[in-house]
């Protein structure tokens, strides 16, 4: 793993081209990690339709074919069950509002395929990967999503060294993990915690307690982002602020490296969260001015 980044509008500004800012941050770090790339962008409350979107890869003779299914509420449980039982598929994204795109290659390749720069939203996360312990295939690219709960995305820099213990404990509870990549475990764990009590900070604290190894990750939900570092702070992670100016409203940016923050002008209040203490960012509801 390698480079993570995220942007969240300070006020709930919908329809801002977040994808463009994420692209800039990722391009600035590209030289360090070139195996695969991915983004997950949220446009708070923008999905007016009532269906769920499930993206997955179907494995066929070493090739990965991407499939998208639009599933209405009434068919959801059955579809989720079928997908969980199928050994040849790997989930890429389970979403109602989130737009998750990932593939092997560089970020500019991803942009050519999906036009990332023009995707609008209130917040989003991005990732550049250099593989450390699993293969370079599209299903191992970040962000990771999970069938446990829609609209959860995780990008991760580091290693979860007790991955097999965490994985078997989640599998014992009945959850299916589709890849051998340790980052997937974060998504499933956090989703499981949110199902139990809904508190993102508590979920992250539980993970910090249980997980071993150096890691910094960002988890995104429909209304918030959390930047989390392990107990020892063994991997970098910083955030900074860009105040409102002519070009864009104010926003917070998170990244592995300072140069990524520089690339989007998020150079105020630059701070690194203390190890073991998650830093949560939420979209503030912008209060509409009352017209006289």
């Amino acid at each position: 793993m390698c480079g993570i980044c995220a942007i969240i509008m300070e006020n709930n500004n919908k329809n801002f081209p977040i994808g463009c800012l994420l692209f800039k941050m990722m391009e600035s770090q590209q030289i360090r990690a070139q195996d695969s790339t991915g983004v997950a962008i949220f446009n708070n409350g923008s999905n007016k339709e009532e269906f769920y979107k499930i993206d997955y890869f179907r494995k066929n003779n070493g090739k990965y074919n991407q499939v998208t299914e639009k599933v209405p509420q009434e068919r959801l449980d059955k579809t989720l069950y079928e997908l969980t039982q199928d050994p040849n598929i790997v989930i890429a994204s389970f979403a109602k509002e989130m737009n998750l795109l990932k593939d092997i290659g560089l970020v500019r390749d991803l942009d050519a395929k999906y036009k990332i720069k023009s995707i609008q939203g209130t917040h989003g996360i991005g990732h550049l990967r250099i593989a450390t312990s699993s293969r370079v295939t599209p299903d191992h690219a970040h962000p990771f999503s999970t069938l446990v709960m829609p609209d959860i995305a995780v990008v991760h820099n580091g290693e979860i060294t007790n991955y097999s213990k965490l994985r078997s404990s989640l599998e014992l509870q009945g959850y299916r993990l589709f890849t051998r990549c340790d980052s997937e475990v974060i998504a499933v764990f956090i989703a499981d915690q949110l199902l139990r009590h809904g508190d993102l900070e508590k979920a992250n604290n539980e993970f910090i307690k249980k997980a071993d190894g150096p890691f910094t990750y960002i988890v995104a939900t429909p209304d918030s982002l959390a930047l989390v570092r392990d107990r020892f702070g063994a991997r970098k992670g910083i955030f900074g602020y860009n105040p409102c100016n002519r070009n864009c409203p104010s926003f917070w940016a998170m990244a592995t490296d300072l140069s990524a923050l520089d690339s989007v002008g998020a150079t105020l209040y630059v701070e690194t969260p203390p190890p073991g203490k998650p830093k949560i960012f939420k979209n503030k509801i912008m209060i509409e001015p009352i017209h006289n």
Partner: protein
Amino acid sequence: MNDADKFIIRKAVLELAKTGTPRFTSIDDDVRNLPKVNSKTINLWDYVTAIGAQLSRPPYDPYRETISLDISIGRKKSRKVSLNIPLIIYGNIAIHHSSLEAVHLALNRLAEKGNVLGLISEIDINTIKDNTRKYPLFKKVSFYKNDSLEHYQKSCPEGLVLEYKDQDSLKILQNFRKEFDGPILVDVSEVFPLYTKTILEEGADGIIVDTDKVTKKERYKGKHAIAVIYDARNAINDYYKGREENDNDNNTILVIAGDVNSAGKIVKAAALGANVVGYSTSMLIAHSNMYSEKPSNVSSIAENVYRHMVGTKGEIKGIPAALGYSDFHNLSPSDLRTSSIDASLQGNIPLEGVDRTYKEMIDEIVNEYVSEKGIKLNSLETQQILRLMVRE
């Protein structure tokens, strides 16, 4: 390098260093001609190593970062016992009273410094002069005396150890479980691998398996501690499969004793699935005073036991850190590799270099042949074939 190898290596290089001309035979030619090592004296542990952290995961630094060794014993319903070091002093050695006193003093001193270990004993600690304990005692219940729980509670033990021999032991376990709220560990070495499920169902907080005893029995003849630990861990995991409670919340512990009396073996046993190790060297040190021409007094022996344990703690902190873990209990079987087919079979340990267990390699060969020939085998038949292959 053992001594025979050292001699060959030195001879070879010194010959080159003296003459600068080629030799007749190489080091490996000479080593190959050495008489074969008697397989009885080989300890399979020597063929098992752990893979360390380098680039794909970074190591931790035990001198500068906190490495946790803490463990809590006791399932949901029991009162918990916490240890700072996952060792319980265990001894099949005939214990002289003064040896036990020395160990007691050492354990107290360790506990004062925040290094709490446990002690298993059948001797009454109350006979020691200063018998205040700062460490948890697991009182061993004697099978032959039909004593009631009150008898054992006189020593105020934090936990009990019950030796399981037969159906009568089950009754004792059931009775004690009703009345004793601390952890009860059941020593199943006499009956292993039977009864594990029953014992856990009756509410035992953990099982103790002495690999020395088990490998002397018929069922494990010719096998090594590795097989015993692997089977014990599987027995506990099987018990939890499909049950509501998750093992992680329940803290059922596996205590392994026997051939685990050095830091390296403690780590390997923990990686295979032991939660706590029944450690006998401390008792050995205390007892060795009996063999001295000028026996020392109790407090010097206690000092020896104390210093030895401090050194051992340093060792078992350093090794997980070098494997990339900040918590000793995160060691897992995927960290082990072996250079012996036998060890791979006994403990399901991957072979070094190929990173697959011997069984997985046979599995691959079987699957390849089966799909080549278009034969369909159900899982039972596959299992039978694997068993046949492995026995050859």
